């Protein structure tokens, strides 16, 4: 089970026990590499015999005797580790990017969300790596963005919202395939008591062009 965690961007994400973590307070690609190399998943395959003379798997793969299935499990474990490393690298890239405004705050928030999602379900990867990559690309493309509120959907994709004056909302769901789904709520200039509501889907690189005509960039950028 994961240890209790402090969610700061300069701390390593809790996933395995503290003993497997790199130096606390440092979070660099080298640490990530060391962390990866130090991680040896439980693959001991110890059998014993119980009183009914049937095999008992005391460690490792429970009830799986088909070697192909075991290989699949090995592959999926490697995939998990690779995805975790990618998540950590992407957050590190955000944290250290000189061009992203509020990089520290965004990275800290992502680490918090990662740990929150792991706390909710230890078996999942915390944040969907494709969604995080998409989010990272968006912030690399647009370096003038105000700080957004960031949350995770139930499926652990990233959802960012900018709210202004209670009446203007721009929210973006970053999908793993490079698409975004967006929502805009804004006042109707001719009928101030009414609200205009727009939603759509586009690729991340087209999002600004798609929503800028609605005035969104004026209130989400500095």
């Amino acid at each position, binding site marked *: 089970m994961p240890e209790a965690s402090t969610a700061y961007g300069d701390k390593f994400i809790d996933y395995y026990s503290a003993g497997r973590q790199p130096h606390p307070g440092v979070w660099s690609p080298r640490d990530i590499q060391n962390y990866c190399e130090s991680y040896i998943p439980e693959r001991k395959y110890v059998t014993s015999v119980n009183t009914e003379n049937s095999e008992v798997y005391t460690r490792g793969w429970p009830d799986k005797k088909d070697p192909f299935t075991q290989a699949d499990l090995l592959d999926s474990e490697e995939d998990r580790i690779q995805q975790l490393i990618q998540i950590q690298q992407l957050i590190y890239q955000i944290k250290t990017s000189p061009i992203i405004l509020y990089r520290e705050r965004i990275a800290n*928030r992502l680490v918090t*969300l990662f740990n*929150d*999602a792991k*706390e*909710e379900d230890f078996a999942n990867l915390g944040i969907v790596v494709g969604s995080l990559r998409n989010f990272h690309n968006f912030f690399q493309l647009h370096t003038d963005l105000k700080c957004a*509120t*960031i*949350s*995770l*959907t*139930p*499926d*652990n994709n990233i*959802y960012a*919202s900018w709210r202004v004056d209670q009446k203007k*909302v721009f*929210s973006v*769901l970053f999908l793993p395939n490079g698409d975004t*789904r*967006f*929502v805009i*709520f804004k006042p109707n200039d001719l009928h101030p008591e009414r*609200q205009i*509501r727009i*939603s759509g889907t586009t690729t991340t690189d087209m999002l600004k062009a798609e929503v800028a005509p609605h005035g969104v960039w004026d209130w989400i950028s500095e």
Partner: protein
Amino acid sequence: MKGDTIPDQHHVARLCDNKHIDGGFIQATAFMLRSGEESLSVNWLEFLNCSCRESEIDELRNTYSRKLKLGAKAKIAVLTVGEVREKVLTESPDRRNLKALHDPQYGTVNDPSHSGIYNLKHDDELIAELILETVQETYPTRK
């Protein structure tokens, strides 16, 4: 009884986990469906038959703590069924008619007030934002 429609003037509570809270505020993601979910899980407060809102929330805290691992920042959002339905019906592009139905759960942990908001889809970010605007009260999940 399972399948009963929750009256419009009644209230439901939605558990909003840590990952749906930023800066202490509930986000629209709290009202989105997980893949494979048919309805948004809520609890029918009047069904609990408590004397006041605080007792209803206490009752839910007990149920949630037995069913789930609650995050430290998790919150309970209270919504009026009729307001949610009216807001979504009048302001969603497809005039979505949501339904709030009783869906009690019995098992290891009984959750007799469990209910669902039906007719949501998995790409309903706009509707999730509308539901967020109808949140009336919020309570911490831990006293």
